[in-house]
């Protein structure tokens, strides 16, 4: 139970200190530390990253959602193709999905040219891949459960009964 609670708090804000998590859950700080460690060791927690609103930065960051269709054969399964694709650092997310296409792949790069080249030179030529459809991200409104852009101002009265 405490595992679930700690995980939930870290998903809310991975930078909560273990002391603050302990205060919020009434657990001992050492118990919180142990829980996090065991979640990391078990591979439940695979990493910690900030949620970035790229529009707020001057540097361009190009991201694309790529639909992939694949043809399997006796020697090659989804896992084999996924493994091959996931090794490219340009691929930031890769999921097998239901529906009209097989893989949903997210790709990041510094320019449209770089991302396009990556898809045409590294992804499309993979023999099992029969089709790619690339969607460039134009604007992002929400990432990892966090709404981007200016937050709502707190317009409540500063003191009220």
């Amino acid at each position, binding site marked *: 139970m405490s595992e679930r609670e700690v995980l939930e*708090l870290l998903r809310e*804000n991975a930078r*909560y200190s273990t002391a*603050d998590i*302990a*205060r*919020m*859950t*009434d657990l001992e700080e050492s118990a919180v530390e142990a829980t996090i460690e065991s979640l990391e060791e078990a591979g439940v927690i695979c990493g910690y990253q900030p949620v970035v609103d790229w529009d707020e930065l001057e540097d361009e960051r190009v991201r694309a959602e790529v639909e992939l269709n694949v043809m399997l054969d006796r020697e090659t399964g989804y896992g084999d193709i996924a493994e091959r694709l996931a090794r490219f650092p340009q691929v930031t997310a890769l999921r097998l999905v239901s529906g009209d296409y097989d893989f949903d792949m997210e790709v990041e790069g510094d320019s449209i040219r770089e991302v396009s080249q990556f898809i045409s030179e590294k992804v499309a030529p993979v023999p099992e891949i029969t089709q790619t459809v690339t969607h460039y991200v134009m604007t992002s409104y929400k990432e990892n459960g966090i709404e981007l852009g200016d937050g*709502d101002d*707190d317009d*409540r*009265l*500063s*003191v*009220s*009964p």
Partner: protein
Amino acid sequence: MTIDLSERVESVGPSGIRRFFEIAEERDDVISLGVGEPDFSTPWAARDAAIASLEQGKTSYTANRGKRELREAISGYVDDRFDLEYGADEEILVTAGASEAVDLAFRAVVDPGDTVAIAQPSYISYEPGVIFAGGEVLPVPTREEDDFRLTVSQLEAAGAADADVLVICYPNNPTGAIMTREDLEPVAAFARENDLTVLADEIYAELTYDGEHTSIATLEGMRERTIVFNGFSKAHAMTGLRLGYALGPAETIGAMNRIHQYTMLSAPTTPQYAALEALDTCADDVREMVEQYDRRRRFVLSRFREIGMPCFEAKGAFYVFPEVPSGWSSEEFAETLLEEQGVAAVPGDVFGEGAAGHLRVSYATGLEDLKEALNRIEAFLEEHEPIASSADP
């Protein structure tokens, strides 16, 4: 010439909170722990339903008692959550906030000269409400050593046996106290023995962090003498939409409706659509908000313990009620804290008797602000330690 104001109005001063608000508003770097409303927005589904109702032009009056569908939904909800069984036809009145319901109840049951006992510390509107209705206020202080629960000995000591009406509010604003069934039993017995009408403000019922909320109206022999107030402001984060309701015996609700139909006509229509949706589909949003409040509550209680400010374990609403160090009045402490550290918390005194020497700290504020505010209070205590310990001669 000047217009001659009524004695009733002139006998009621502006609220102590108002004065404190004005001081706090003068600064812009203030972290406020003084806010008596949720920091969450109304669940989107409820807002969306309100918008849709506007798009469809649903802007006429509703039935005096509120939309029938909404009363049916309220009837189902209070039964499901709090075992309160009230019929949609005659026993539920939808009002412009629970505040209107409280005012209607005072006007419906208080005759000039009637005594209304109020368990204090309490929300600041009960006293003026009684006075506007022509009644006399009898404060019944609760005590920190009782965890701010109302006890029969406090009722007896205050002379509440001779009162006509008793007002209670649990989970409590400003203390965060709750009362369990066991705590309520003797109070209910006292009310039955002394033939008191009970007005139970249960606006914070959903915000109960230890066990389930018990309504005094569910205790034996209490339904016929109790009016329960609840609403959407706190649990559903709908303060500005102004929607509440009263539950009570048909005759009492009918009397309140008689005032309501002449003065308000019907509660605002758009919020009624929001409220209907809130009851239909927003239980998870409520649960999520309650979970967040509970975490903050634990956090704030832990921090007050760590910095050495005694604070009883509040288990409801979104307030804790720490004790200011000896040598300070709560007002002095609150004003100096605001001035020196830019942290606003409401001095307990404004909430009536039994509140002296305390601060109302609201945790309806994001965790980052709570952290910073508590750090500033810690710094404040360190700076003033010598004064605090040597102030008493």
